């Protein structure tokens, strides 16, 4: 196997002996640093900008004055959708006090995700989670100009809690909104230096509801992932 590796590297080096100069020259033709954001800056509040962009994607933004208002909004969304079972991040990871009480009060069962490694247990656990009508996660950042939700994996942060159910609710604080993708990546790396993936296997950007235009270029939402996306921003 390491033979195959050495042979491939050998072939690449042989090729590069001829073209490395051309490629290196192209590499120097422009800076590599990502711009912090790409749309012209205007002074709209970033949370407002996020909300405007999210609504353009047929998703819902809720700007709440404080934590209590956010709790009420969450109860309303779940109540209106008639949710009985919700997958969520673990409570410490969510850091949204009152969630357990609120869910109990409106008759929503909350499930943590814990997938076992064996094939049979994995399939059984997935089957048990699949009927959930909602999933709820926190966020690691919101990107205003593209209306993107940024979520890191890790302990207590199942990937399925932003993926499996038809309704997805992300809960964010106002100070988590940044303007652009470049900024968001720089901030994540700084926070988790030196190695963003030391303790997690995933970083996910979510921009609006699951969608497809595969049939006659006609937009259809919720093909595999959530169809209804709500972002609650408070504080």
């Amino acid at each position, binding site marked *: *196997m390491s033979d195959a590796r050495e042979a491939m590297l050998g072939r690449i080096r042989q090729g590069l002996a001829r073209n490395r100069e051309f490629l290196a020259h192209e590499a*120097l033709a422009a800076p590599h640093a*990502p711009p912090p954001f790409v749309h012209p800056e205007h002074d709209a509040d970033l949370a407002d900008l996020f909300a405007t962009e999210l609504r353009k994607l047929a998703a819902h933004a809720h700007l709440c004055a404080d934590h209590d208002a956010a709790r009420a909004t969450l109860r309303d969304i779940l109540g209106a959708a008639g949710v009985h079972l919700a997958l969520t991040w673990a409570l410490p990871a969510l850091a949204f006090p009152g969630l357990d009480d609120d869910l109990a009060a409106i008759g929503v069962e909350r499930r943590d995700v814990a997938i076992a490694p064996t094939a049979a247990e994995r399939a059984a656990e997935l089957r048990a989670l*699949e009927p959930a009508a909602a999933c709820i996660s926190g966020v690691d950042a919101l990107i205003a100009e593209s209306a993107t939700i940024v979520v890191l994996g890790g302990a207590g942060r199942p990937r399925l809690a932003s993926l499996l159910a038809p309704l997805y609710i992300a809960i964010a604080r106002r100070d988590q909104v940044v303007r652009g993708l470049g900024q968001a990546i720089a901030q994540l790396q700084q926070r988790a230096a030196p190695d963003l993936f030391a303790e997690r*296997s995933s970083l996910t950007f979510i921009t609006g509801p699951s969608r497809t235009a595969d*049939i006659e270029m006609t937009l259809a939402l919720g093909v595999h992932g959530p169809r209804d996306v709500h972002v609650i921003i408070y504080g």
Partner: protein
Amino acid sequence: MATQSIAFHDRVDRALDNRSLQTALGRATDRFVTNRANALALVDDFDDLRARGRAIRASALAQLDDVLVRLSERIEARGGQVFWAADGNAARRYIVDLARTRAVRTIVKSKSMASEEIHLNDALEAAAFTVVETDLGEYIIQLAGETPSHIIAPCIHKTREEISTLFQDHLGMPATDDIPTMTRTARGALRQQFLQADMGISGVNFGVADAGAVVVVENEGNARLTTTAPRIHVAVMGIERVCERLEDLGVLLQLLARSATGQKLSVYTSILSGPRRADEPDGPDEFHLILLDNGRSQIIGGDYAEALLCIRCGACLNACPVYQSIGGHAYGGVYSGPIGAILTPLLQPELRDVHKLPQASSLCGACQSACPVKIAIPDMLLRLRADAVAAGRTDAIERIAMAGWSQAMRSPTLYRVGGKLASLGTRLLAREGRIGWLPPPLDQWTHQRDFPPFAPRSFTELWAERQRRAAGDGR
């Protein structure tokens, strides 16, 4: 349907005769082009972003040996496994063996051009595994037993009625051509596959060396499910699809989404680094990265190395007047459109007529202006044509015609007489200024495109007259 076994000209003929294909292609490519233009208009300085994207990709390729070593070492340090596949055969064997030793039954796949390129599904099915494509378009194509016709929209050539019939036959859907109903039907059927699948196979948009991660970009969520639900994730990546740092994604993802579909970012970007960690609640327990060479290490040392900068956005397809008329299948290979006309002869040289693909271009330059990494596609197509001529891979008629041309160019008299005859002849044949038919063997040209009549007076004549007039003006 083995499109590859049919001659290129016949594939083109079929496409040009297919009215519903023409309508679908026109509609879809128009939409892509408009969406892209709208998205670009919002960006402060898109050309600056393109320049950065090109530099980032060129930099990664210039150090490809080093970049791949870094990427593979990081992934192994995180508990992932890396397989260096010299060709499609090696990659197929590794994945089939892996599926066997892990007692896999069902495999779900999200879109991967690299695995199409090496016919991975055929190998897995031959080994008796159930393989399910989960991207809606790819799933439809799989049910129909066809191959994708567009990088971004694989079933762009199918009408809703055709798809409805497929779903009625295969999934027991009641008769309807309501698109939301069809989408829901597919979702339900595919959900069951995700829950029971043992292995998920995905493509890779970018490998990020210093992060030890692969990036998978999509809109549906099927790639997230493919890389999360099954206990084994296999990512198949062409070795050129790399960048050095996570920051590079701040440029590349923006270019990709805007160029491909006009979105600011695609709906889902999954950046995945090895198997799940011990305390993570979900994700695969095994992670395998296949580094697929399959001819790429030859390209990087050749005259077409620049083609490896491609980020597979599909913008050049949508911009191309030839692609708009003939669609992806006519190109015969996995990669279609202008970039496919370059990549297919290099990556799938075994296919029939591949040397003719560079002819499927009017060299109008629309592809290069659309390309987010500014690949000089028309220039490369021209050079590929010259290569084909130099290698003697041309038709007899073309060779005779070119020999005649060469004679005429060397004899002014012959040239003038020939020009006169052509001018007279073509004007006799023209209807409303276009020629739809030329006598054999020239009908090879007019069979698929019109030919303009020669100007009634040649440039030489006009020039001589102009000189005479200038002289007559005195002074």
